[in-house]
């Protein structure tokens, strides 16, 4: 009886030791599982923090803001010498505005209308505006053009630019309607009237543009004869420049900025000349404009 008890005790001890080992192994396994969930939790938290920070930084910090005291810059942009335009020609421009067959001829005050749709936050609009302002200044006079910069949180952040919000344009040849649909903080700004909205919806969409870039801005419509969708050059070209530096560089035909901006302006000018029956002659027959006309794209 005493022997059986001793055997039982040894068996109990062995079982208890085995049980303890199993319990210890199970504890280690559970610890590993919790570690894995911890790692996954950290990943999720990092992503949530990034989303939270992004949502919480809707407003830009620093950077230039819209103002009407941009006279010097606008004056410089609108006084690029004919010699600079002539030297640059088409410059580094790859493709100018695209022709439209049978496009809707829009007019305002009896003159063919150039319609621009963009947004102040958009870096590509920021690039294109310099050329639009320069080109149209050859046909008329700007007032109220402000300076601003693209979003601080987008591609090519804080690209220096001008703004058509609140701007006026007068010309004997054409009219201009420019809309900045959102400000730098992507808050609503200008609203398109229904007729211009219809033009945007019709021509900033297939078959005129690829499905992938439908609705993209900047969109410029030249009175039913030409249009452009997107910037003509990369806004990174203007990285870290001030408004004054961009405007000054436009006067130097050897600068990369002039090759891009003045080249684009020459091609835009050529498109506008198609609306004005090549008036004024001194503009539309200028060598730079003729070179720019060579970059106009046929209807697709």
């Amino acid at each position, binding site marked *: 009886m005493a022997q059986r008890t001793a055997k039982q005790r040894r068996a109990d001890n062995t079982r208890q030791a085995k049980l303890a080992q199993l319990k210890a*192994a199970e504890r280690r*396994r559970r610890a*590993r599982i919790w570690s894995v969930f911890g790692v996954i939790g950290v*990943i999720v938290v990092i992503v949530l923090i990034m989303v939270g920070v992004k949502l919480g930084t809707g407003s830009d910090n620093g950077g230039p803001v819209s103002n009407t005291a941009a006279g010097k810059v606008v004056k410089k942009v609108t006084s690029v010498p004919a010699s600079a335009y002539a030297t640059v020609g088409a410059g580094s421009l790859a493709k100018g505005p695209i022709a439209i067959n049978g496009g809707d001829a829009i007019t305002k005050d009896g003159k063919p209308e150039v319609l621009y749709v963009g947004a102040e936050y958009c870096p590509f609009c920021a690039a294109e505006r310099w050329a639009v302002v320069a080109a149209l200044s050859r046909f008329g006079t700007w007032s109220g053009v402000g300076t601003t910069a693209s979003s601080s949180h*987008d*591609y090519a952040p804080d690209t220096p630019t001008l703004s058509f919000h609140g701007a006026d344009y007068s010309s004997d040849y054409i009219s201009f309607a420019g809309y900045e649909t959102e400000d730098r903080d992507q808050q609503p700004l200008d609203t398109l009237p229904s007729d211009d909205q219809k033009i945007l919806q019709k021509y900033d969409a297939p078959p005129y543009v690829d499905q992938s870039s439908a609705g993209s801005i900047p969109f410029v419509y030249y009175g039913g004869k030409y249009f452009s*969708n997107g*910037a*003509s050059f990369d806004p990174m070209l203007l990285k870290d420049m001030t408004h004054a530096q961009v405007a000054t560089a436009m006067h130097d035909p050897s600068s990369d900025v002039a090759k891009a901006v003045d080249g684009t302006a020459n091609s835009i000018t050529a498109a506008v000349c198609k609306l004005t029956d090549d008036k004024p002659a001194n503009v539309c027959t200028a060598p730079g404009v003729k070179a720019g006309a060579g970059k106009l794209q046929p209807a697709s």
Partner: protein
Amino acid sequence: MSRTTGAEPTAGTVTWPPRWVQPTALVLAVLGLADSVYLTFEHYTGSKTLACSSGGLFNCHAVTTSDYAYLPVGSGVPVALLGLLFFIGITALCLPQLWDRSRGIDLLRLLALGVGVLMVLWLVYVELFKLSQICPYCTGVHVITVVLFGVVAVAEALRPLPVER
């Protein structure tokens, strides 16, 4: 292919990997592979866009043709292609025949997915703070990578421990 682990004595009769792991991991890997095939196609067929999408935050084309679509940024190897190669490798590593075949393969699977998760965090940062554009197809790949990492990591955590002699 589930089996009890090797020659070592294990805790109880637990099999590894658990039955749900292999099909779940393989399905996720194949989904990730299909998504990355599309993104690679989009990268090579889409021209570089110099426009802002009116669609707001969601624009795959802008993301896959941006400077950040390359590693190093602006040049180098397309991220979409790296993603495709990654998922080809992960799909192979998630084939049922390769689970528990060797400790090295199991660790390689976990390590590769860990690197994938770090890449996902970088790409989410780029989308949110550098481009301000979200590509839903990219997000699909990101979610799949993180979930697949979770599945494989949980499977590794469930691996039976050898019982001390």
